[in-house]
């Protein structure tokens, strides 16, 4: 028995968006931008967000126009079953690749920084088992769980900001364009699919109390995430200088490692790990669920929770193929993002065109 149907509202959506996009401020994504953009890593995401804004708004417009659909249903409705399946599978595949590479990075991060003597696979199995177990409980639980743990994560973020601020030197942000304005622009555009979750989240368009909740949530959460990411990246620049920042893979942890709080609390980095690890868990729980949801929607599988286990483990096995973390981050992730990006920039316009054509045919 349930007293309220579809109980999730705006606040849960904000938390979900924040978790899945905003916390890219704390993983290895900044290192991805730092390679070429140098101390302008904070400009990279701004460019990416601006580039993604147009396709995203188009998608939101379409979803609002055809009230009853989620992302995949909308695709099927607009461009037919065959083309829809192909596009849906492409979206799924790119999301899946991003999931695999991101997950490998996070697991390597945990492994390298906190459990250096353990084999990666041991950590990986623990990590993904917990993700699958929780994701199995369904969307409403995930939403509520995210909201319930948000205070811990927000507190951690605020603490990190305050603590890092003490060691940050504002002037290090200059020269303002780092590796050069053209480089930053290119980096921002080609890697804009680092934030492709924005365009995958509409799969949950119908899963909230009202679609309005989803829209409000994704806008608020998106803006918050953008602020968070940009401020974190800027902070990293201000803490390390441009030459050092290229060498560091785990900027979040490293930045908390070099600060001290008086001389009693000298090693405080593990304290910030708590919120970070919670958010990493949540992020992949949500991500894994969304990927399975998309797959389930394409092939009209109602109880797609059963897919979590196979998809999760295939993703784990795939992501363990690159021989090392550096290869995974700098080669696999970078290339895959550059390949994926055009798809995400184009497909909403494709749908828009189809909708336009459909409308004209009708009248």
């Amino acid at each position, binding site marked *: 028995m349930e007293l309220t149907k579809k109980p999730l*509202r705006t606040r849960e959506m904000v938390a979900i968006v924040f978790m899945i996009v905003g916390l890219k401020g704390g993983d290895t994504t900044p290192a991805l931008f730092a390679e070429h953009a140098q101390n302008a890593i904070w400009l990279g995401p701004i460019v990416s967000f601006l580039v993604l804004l147009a396709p995203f708004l188009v998608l939101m417009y379409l979803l609002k126009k055809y009230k009853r659909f989620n992302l995949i249903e909308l695709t099927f409705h607009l461009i037919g079953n065959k083309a829809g399946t192909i596009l849906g599978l492409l979206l799924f595949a790119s999301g899946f690749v991003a999931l695999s590479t991101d997950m490998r990075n996070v697991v390597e991060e945990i492994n390298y920084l*906190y459990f250096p003597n353990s084999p990666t696979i041991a950590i990986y199995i623990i990590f993904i088992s917990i993700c699958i177990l*929780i994701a199995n409980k369904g969307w409403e639980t995930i*939403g*509520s769980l995210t909201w*319930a743990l948000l205070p811990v994560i927000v507190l951690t973020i605020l603490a990190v900001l305050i603590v890092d601020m003490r060691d940050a030197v504002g002037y290090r942000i200059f020269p303002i364009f780092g590796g050069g304005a053209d480089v930053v622009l290119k980096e921002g555009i080609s890697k804009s699919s680092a934030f492709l979750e924005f365009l995958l989240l509409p799969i949950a368009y119908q899963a909230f109390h009202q679609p309005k909740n989803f829209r409000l949530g994704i806008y608020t959460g998106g803006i918050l995430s953008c602020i968070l990411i940009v401020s974190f990246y800027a902070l990293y620049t201000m803490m390390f200088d441009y030459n050092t920042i290229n060498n560091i893979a785990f900027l979040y942890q490293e930045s908390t490692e070099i600060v001290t709080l008086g001389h009693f609390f000298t*090693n405080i980095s593990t304290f910030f790990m708590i919120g970070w690890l*919670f958010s990493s*868990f949540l992020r992949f729980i949500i991500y894994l669920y969304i990927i399975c949801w998309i797959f389930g929607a394409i092939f009209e599988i109602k109880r797609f929770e059963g897919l979590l286990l196979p998809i999760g483990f295939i993703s784990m096995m795939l992501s363990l193929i690159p021989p090392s973390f550096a290869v995974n981050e700098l080669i696999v992730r970078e290339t895959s993002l550059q390949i994926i990006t055009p798809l995400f920039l184009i497909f909403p316009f494709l749908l828009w065109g189809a909708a336009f054509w459909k409308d004209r045919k009708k009248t």
Partner: protein
Amino acid sequence: MFPWQKQKTEAIEKRENRKISKNLKDNIAYLEEQYSYGLNYDFESKSVHGPTGKYHLLFYSTTVNTQQLSNHIVSPLLEVKKDIPINQILSVPSITPIKNMGEAEKGLNEGSVIIFKEGLAEGFEAKIQDFKHRAVEKAENEKTVKGPKESFTESLPTNVSMFRKKIPSKDLIVENINVGMRPAMPVTLIYERDLVNDEVLENIKQRIKNITVDNIRNVEILEQFIEERPSSLFPSMLYTERPDNASNFVSDGYIAIIMDNSSSCLIAPITIWSFFHSPEDRYLRWAFANFSRLIRAIAYFITLFVSASYVAVTNYHSQLMPIDLLLAIASSRERVPLPIAFEILLMEVAFELIREAGVRIPSPLGPTIGIVGALILGQAAVEANLVSPIVVIIVALSGLSSFAAANYSINHTLRISRFLFIAAASVYGLLSLLGAILLWVAYVVSISSFGVSYFSPATPSTKSTHDTFFRKILKNERWRPGFLNPKDWDKY
């Protein structure tokens, strides 16, 4: 249904439908046989010869008020001169005519006096029961400094009267549902007609009606028969002994369940926050109440996580600790023969033993527990280098904190969860501990109690008082808990 059960029910029905005959002797003989008159020493069968006829009284001498019996039943029967119906002769407040033996037996079982008159194919039941129960006493388990002191007692009428006193309104419904067969006991639902959500009410009634067990004597047993997840760590009903607390819930749209023989009541549906709240939080002023909530929240976190974090940090993340603390712990562990996880488990189990023994021990022996606990397990274990002093502090802290829980129902949840977290922490440090916490929280937010999400109103959120970790100023609490979907949301 099995054939023997069918026979049994048929026999019972036949007996119950037996008519009362005009012949007094027949009636008496039948009931005396049924009630083993002579064997049952407290079953009385008395005849009264008044001026207007021959009467016969049947009752349990132990369950009726003998003073009322002599003053209001026997005396009037002896004194009345005119032949008027019995229910006009007697001056007891409740007297009802009965037609068949089933009703007569029911009345006798409930402690009434059954009166027959020669030549009348009808009996009368006079309700002058006087079951013995405790007086209304102070609440023992949910103590408050500020606020009413009385608690429920093991008597249904007394408990209902306490509800009526707190909510004097025609909308307060006290509804009985019978449960069980040998004998059927009434379960009383108390709710406000104009607030309660009918869906929830119907659900609870249905659950009670579906119970097929022979008998249920009190709410403690009832709770386990109607809850949704009997093996879960989390209770789905609140168990309270305070009438003020119960009526606060009822006037918010919750449903209270009481039974005779229970000095407490159940509140359903419930959210996890209610276990965390004490009725005193409403009686204290805003700042004081929230301060006490804050302390309690800290206590909850300590009792759940402090031992587990100690295991995780010392075993896997020693770089987290400031060097002075690190050296202090390392030096105190220099001579301890056990790994940290075992050390903690040993002391936690010892503490649980003290607690369990403390509850069961006869009160004259009570002080020994203190001596044994404090001396043997604290001092001596440290001096014998069996555990390090820091572990004693940590276990004592987590044990003490678990007593700050506002409600006993959640106490066990915290204690057992703590062991799960310690085990998780020893597997893979903070990674597995945080994973376990995540699973635990995911479970909490996923369950529901009678259709109400366990974590409401924090998430999923609805219009409500938002009384979670902290409460608002009472004047600002405009809405009733919306997650119950009451008929009237607005408090004003």
